[in-house]
């Protein structure tokens, strides 16, 4: 598998991480493009045995951290309406699955999405890296440039807060 094909496979994952970091669709897309540009330039430094996905995520996070130093205001929330329109059209066009389970899944995803967005940034990123992108503690430590012990404790606190938010959403829904 060549670099192009291998790198494209991680586009959705990188976009998801960018959305969690920036909470802004336009900024997320810019961040993804900048990540791929940097990756392309640094491709020669990538060792054959390296984990490409982990490498790409590390590049993205480093770009984001540098950008944060120059951003005056905090990132604002996602443009909900345009996202919802895209999802609704995908949902309506999908003829191959049971509509009820699709709807349930959609609501569950939105609930988790909304809860994650309420977390502080250092909790958001670690939950995404572990629970959605399945990186190991050691890989997360490399991406976040922190000890594996910090990953463990931060993840525990992030999950505790996320669980609280999700259970509150459940109560609100009822």
């Amino acid at each position, binding site marked *: 598998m060549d670099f*192009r094909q291998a790198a494209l496979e991680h586009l*959705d994952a990188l976009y998801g991480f960018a959305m969690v970091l920036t909470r802004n669709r336009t900024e*997320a897309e810019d961040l993804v493009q900048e990540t791929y540009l940097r990756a392309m330039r640094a491709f020669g430094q990538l060792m054959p*045995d390296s984990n490409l996905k982990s490498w790409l995520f590390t590049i993205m996070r480093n770009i984001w951290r540098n950008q944060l130093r120059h951003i005056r205001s905090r990132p604002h929330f996602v443009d909900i309406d345009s996202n919802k329109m895209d999802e609704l059209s995908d949902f309506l066009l999908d003829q191959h699955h049971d509509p009820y389970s699709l709807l349930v899944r959609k609501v569950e995803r939105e609930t988790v999405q909304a809860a994650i967005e309420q977390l502080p940034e250092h909790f958001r990123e670690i939950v995404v890296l572990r629970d959605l992108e399945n990186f190991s503690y050691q890989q997360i430590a490399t991406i976040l440039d922190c000890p594996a012990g910090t990953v463990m404790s931060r993840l525990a606190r992030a*999950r505790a807060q996320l669980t609280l938010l999700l259970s509150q959403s459940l109560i609100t829904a009822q």
Partner: protein
Amino acid sequence: MSICQQAPNQFQLYLDNELDSQEKLQLEKHLQNCISCKQIFDQQQYWLTQIRHSKPLYQASANLQSSIEKILDDCPKPYQASAKLHKNIDKLLSNSNLLTFPSKSSIQRLVVAVAATVIILLTSYTYLSSYNSSTSFDEHSEFALMAVNTHIRHQKGKLPLEIKSDSAQDVSTWFLGKVSFSLTLPNYQESSGQEKLYQLEGARLVGFKNDYAAYISYQMQQRPISLIVTANTVALPDGGEKIISKGLTFHCEVIDGLKVISWTDHGLTYALISDLAERGQQSCVVCHTGTKDKDFIDSLKIKS
């Protein structure tokens, strides 16, 4: 601390597959017998499942996908050697008298390169003891400085070995998958039938320029010797006094009173660090008289 007090700390590690098999079994056994722990575990598992099943949270738009494809289309293709170049290199390697092994694989070429390191290790105190601090050298390379710093930190106990073994094979196996290059330490002393002059102590990884370098610790006559290895795409030797021998350029320098020899060979860059100060030329000759390496060793001696 009772098992019930300890168990919740392990739930997260269990659900993240970060426990070893024995720890997993112990926890599973406890959960079979403890209802309250099982309830807490089930709750954690439930919420984790909800979170993980929500993937993917976001999907890249078609516009973004085509923008990225365009970026990647501009990615330069990797260089490929022509068939003629392949043939020439193959011919060169089959005629090379450096290769004494029957196979010409790249790993065995690296073994030869590391064997050369061992020979240098045995004779380095002869050559290095001639250095005086008044010799003026070019500025020290970043790699040499890192190598010295690593040697000092290990001596001070701040960088413990991650594998302790006097087996070159065990240490070589340990490095597999941990570094981005192939590294095989030779059993030079055993294969040559000589008495052991140096002792392999073990190894560890050291971070250098967003990558891992290999650190190998030796002892010779109770004096510490360190060997650092990295890919030559990460670092190249520079500075110091240059000595050319057997087609290799050795950079020799003194940093903080420590003798450093660095060189590059077959895609790897090496740095050898020691604090050996006394002259050992005579004992060197005793050990190596009559061996096939005598000419090579002689080429490193100080010319009077």
